[in-house]
């Protein structure tokens, strides 16, 4: 009695494939605006209700172990302070490769994330490991600089060896309706990235509405983002699970239309394993298993790593160790 999803289609031969045809996805600002305008709206109450429901998933025992290791492998271990020192970055990179020196079964994290001037140092420390070096660029975190300066920022980070670039969008341009300008900036930065992966930070705390988050997500993906990222961590509202849900729906739908999987990075304010696991449940039940990989999902965080290590240790031994058992950087 089972039928396939497509069985209901009344006349299959009428299906016209427009979207998968080769060529540029967007050919004018008007086209971009029309495409973004055609996206379905987001019902805020519904999004938050869905997130609250998924937060009741109970991840225990073997599932918890799997989730903790998965989360560890997805961390972009981040330090983005004016006070960052060479020693701090060196320590961070060491920890990224071997988060718990006493336990070799702990996976290394996905990447370290630093300012452009520290890329060369970080690259040197992680050399030969699987840990990538990500650099923020384009006048992070505000994005308030000329295009020339932004591109120079990117080029510097790339030439220093950055594997990944975390750019910020011009929120002022987006919110004032200059969607073409935001699009062109992303296209230009993508070109400047060369082979480096591009993460586009939407700074969802400043976009405010879920409709804006959905629109900005599609805009970034259409312009060539490899990842869409929630936040800089520098404004008061950083990553939230409802925002992550909207972005995960966007990457899932984008893959349905264009056959290309874009990653999602949640950043800012994620400090506990419990929180991280709730994000993984969102990924699992929204975008699906294909996204449960550091290639397609990341946590931009710093203190999260120690909590993951502590919970992992607790699961194995049954008791909590004191927090000083793990290094601060």
């Amino acid at each position, binding site marked *: 009695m089972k039928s396939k999803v497509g069985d209901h*289609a009344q006349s299959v031969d009428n299906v016209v494939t427009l979207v998968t045809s080769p060529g540029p996805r967007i050919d004018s600002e008007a086209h971009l605006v029309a495409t973004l305008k055609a996206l379905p*709206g987001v019902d805020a109450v*519904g*999004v938050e*209700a869905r997130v609250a429901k998924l937060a*009741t998933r109970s991840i225990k025992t073997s599932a918890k172990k799997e989730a903790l290791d998965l989360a560890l492998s997805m961390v972009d271990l981040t330090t983005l302070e004016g006070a960052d020192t060479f020693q701090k970055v060196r320590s961070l990179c060491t920890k990224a490769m071997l988060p718990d020196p006493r336990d070799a079964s702990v996976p290394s994290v996905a990447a370290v994330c630093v300012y452009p001037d520290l890329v060369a140092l970080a690259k040197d420390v992680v050399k030969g490991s699987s840990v990538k070096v990500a650099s923020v660029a384009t006048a992070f975190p505000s994005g308030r600089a000329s295009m020339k300066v932004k591109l120079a920022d990117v080029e510097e980070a790339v030439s220093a060896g950055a594997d990944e670039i975390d750019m910020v969008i011009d929120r002022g341009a987006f919110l004032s309706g200059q969607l073409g300008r935001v699009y062109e900036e992303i296209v230009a930065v993508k070109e400047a990235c060369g082979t480096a992966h591009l993460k586009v930070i939407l700074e969802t705390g400043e976009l405010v509405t879920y409709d804006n988050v959905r629109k900005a997500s599609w805009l970034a993906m259409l312009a060539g983002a490899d990842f869409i990222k929630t936040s800089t961590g520098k404004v008061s509202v950083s990553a939230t699970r409802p925002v992550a849900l909207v972005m995960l729906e966007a990457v899932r739908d984008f893959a349905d239309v264009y056959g290309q999987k874009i990653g999602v990075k949640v950043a800012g304010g994620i400090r506990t394993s419990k929180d991280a696991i709730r994000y993984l*449940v969102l990924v699992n*039940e929204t975008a699906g*298993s294909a996204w449960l990989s550091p290639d397609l999902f990341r946590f931009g965080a710093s203190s999260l790593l120690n909590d993951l290590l502590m919970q992992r240790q607790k699961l194995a031994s049954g008791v909590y160790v004191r927090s000083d058992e793990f290094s601060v950087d």
Partner: protein
Amino acid sequence: MSSTPPSSKLGSLDYAPALESKSSATIAAHYGLFIEGAFREASSSQSFSSINPATEEELTTISQANAADVDAAVASARKAYDSVWSKMPGAERGKYLYRIARIIQERSRELAVVETLDNGKPIRESRDVDVPTAAAHFFYYAGWADKLEHAGFGPSPRPLGVAGQIVPWNFPLLMAAWKLAPALATGNTCVLKPAETTSLSAMVLADILQQADLPPGVVNIITGDGSTGAALVAHPGVDKIAFTGSTGVGRQIQRSLATTTKHVTLELGGKGANIVFDDAPLDETVEGIIDGIFFNQGHVCCAGSRLLVQESIADDILARLLRRVDQLRVGDPMDKNTDVGAINSAEQLERIRVLANAGDEEGATRYTSSCELPKKGFWFAPTVFSNVAQTHRIAREEIFGPVLSVLTFRTPEEAIAKANNTTYGLACGVWSEKGSRTLWAAQRLRAGVVWANTYNRFDPTSPFGGVRESGFGREGGRHGLEGYLDV
């Protein structure tokens, strides 16, 4: 318990079994009738067994009340009405209701476990919906108890007397709360008759009423099959019958009360239409459709069992819906990650099967969730019928199970015409980002409840009830007081 963990096709993150502990609930080997504030055996000494629908194991045995027991319960309620409850100031009645509400909260885990074991619904739902909403109803009506003269029913509205209340098996505790809370707040005394397959949470509730020191006889609980309910309806000492259940039984009740002076309110079946316009918020709409039909295994009188989708987005919605249906975790109701639990009884399972087979025979396209079903117990996989015509039985008859019928419409007028083309009129949903369209549709739908961009939301402050063959009378809100007042 079944050892098969609920399956989910989506995701490599396999959720390990997360079973709620049964230790928070102690189920006695046998329960008697709760009359005059104490448990007693049925006069016939007959009892019936109550089973766990997820495993078919016996949970306990329960006394079968006959006409003599009903008589004793009604006499007890009358005595309590005359001597205590009708004379008590509203503020004092309110204190008892607040106390009951708080004890329900305190014993929420126990109640949730009992409800899930007895009914088959997922522990997540009994924990997050049934029990907290039941407590909320007592809290809400506790507040009304001393404010009845401000409720708009005159300066000094009087209670009716003894209320006979018959509740269904789909939300045993919650429906008992819907019935008891307004009746007690307005000064009536009650004889409550739970459904035969789900009496257990009412037994815990009886214990809670004792714990709250509710005066003996204010609430009496009699268990048994349909004959017990019929005896209660026919009893001359009852002033009011409140019934929630099938339209068939509702009709019988109304017929038997036709020559009496008894008051009656009926909350009956439904065939709710969930109408999706092309400007709907798609992802939230899909979740709402899922909630509308698979919440509580579809054992919901107001379930959104008919999906009416605007033609231009029908394929998109259906593809998203089926992907989501495959993701539902069906299995052990005591697992905290279960989305869809067991069908309440073999009888109900058979009814669902018959109607689903009718869907096949009439030419609708069936899609069945790929979930694995446990071997023991009563199970029906989430099912979606597309290409359903308005004439099909699955578009007209209440299935009361996890079966959705999908129809399409082209114009808003057609949506309304199809939605209203039913003998029922309990609930509808409207999905659109356009407020004017939602209001336009809501004005034209013949249903007691219309939800906008949501479905199956219950709040004690909001009246609930049907029109036409879905019954009459309102429960919840200020309106819910009216059914228990002599106005």
